[in-house]
């Protein structure tokens, strides 16, 4: 019983942000375990705050834009780890990646 409670009740808070840093970003998308959490224009910083399972989750990001524009992804897991900041560059107007946390 305790294991089941742990599985369904223990959650981690997370803040995921995508932000243009150079050039022109058309659209930002982010998915957690296949569920879309961000789908918005890349004209400014887009952010999602929520809870995720304690189990490992898969985050996928897809970004479209112009040429070799750049964007920054920030993941904040309060109390668990320092903010993780990663900067990426589009290639031919597109970039995607997956991470597991």
């Amino acid at each position, binding site marked *: 019983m305790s294991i089941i409670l742990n599985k369904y009740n223990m959650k981690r808070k997370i803040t995921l942000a995508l932000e*243009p*840093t*150079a*050039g*022109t*970003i*058309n*659209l930002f*998308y982010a*998915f957690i375990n*296949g569920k*879309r959490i*961000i*789908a*918005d*224009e*890349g*004209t*400014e910083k*887009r952010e999602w705050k929520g809870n995720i399972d304690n189990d490992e989750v898969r985050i*996928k990001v*897809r970004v*479209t*834009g*112009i*040429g*070799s*524009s*750049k964007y920054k992804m920030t993941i904040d897991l309060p109390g668990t780890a320092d903010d993780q900041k990663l900067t990426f560059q589009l*290639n*031919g*107007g*597109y*970039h*995607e990646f997956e991470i597991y946390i």
Partner: protein
Amino acid sequence: MNLKFIFRLLLLVLIISNISSYAQEAKFKIGPYANGMTNIKDGFFEIGTIFHKSNMEIKPYLRIPISNKEKAITQIDRNSNTFKGVLSYSYILDITEETGPIKRIFISGQFEFGTKEYKFYPDSTNSSETKSNQISFAGELKIGCYKTNGEEYAKQIAPEFRVRYSKEYKSSDEVGIVMNNSNGISTVNELIITEPDAKPTLSPAISLNFYSGKGDFSYTPAMYYNFIGKAGENNPFNGNSRLRVETWVFYYPVVSAKTGIKIGLSPFVSLRTTGDDSLNKFEYGGMLQLLISTNMLHFF
């Protein structure tokens, strides 16, 4: 092609041609879902608020005329010297998934409303000053979509359709009135002697934003058809009409100081297709746009 070259080229164009379009937008955060917005575009200063969620946007703002562009041929359906309140609503339907094509559709509606007091002198004398308050308004509907395969070097397209109906009051032209005083000296007094009037305008337009997936340029051919009715009436189909074609090239410099910079250049041709107006049957010229904090999804 380097940035300095582009700016030099645009400076040259500014010098040698009659540039008729300019835009600069800035946004600043004022809350979790709200941004302040200022925009300078086509002779108007806009200030207001944007309430934004990923699938909708509401934008109440004020539009203040800052220059007299009444004669600008590229602004037939936007000419206004009235301080107006504008309310726009956009809905976005996005069906993009983790894999596969990236697709979204948006629908946007906008209503504009304003009043202005006009003075005129029906008896051609200063003592006959008459004031008239007139209401100007416009409505606009936009539908657009965006599609790309979601791969490196994939083509990106964003077609848009827009239709706009407007009824904008404008003061009549001044005329020279010859005044003779008691000393036998004649002077000319410039006065507006007739009431302001408004012509209804209906302007459907289409555009196709296209990015090849290579380089820093996108291309947007656009076509407008303006139906202009007779003064004092609501029907836009009983006056004259003009067809205008633009072919924009947009350059997106990759600079980190400011993102979403878009510099556009286009020639245009305008052809009067029915009726008569104060312009030549065939007109042509150039247009320049500088946009900040934008992307290639929207044209109108």
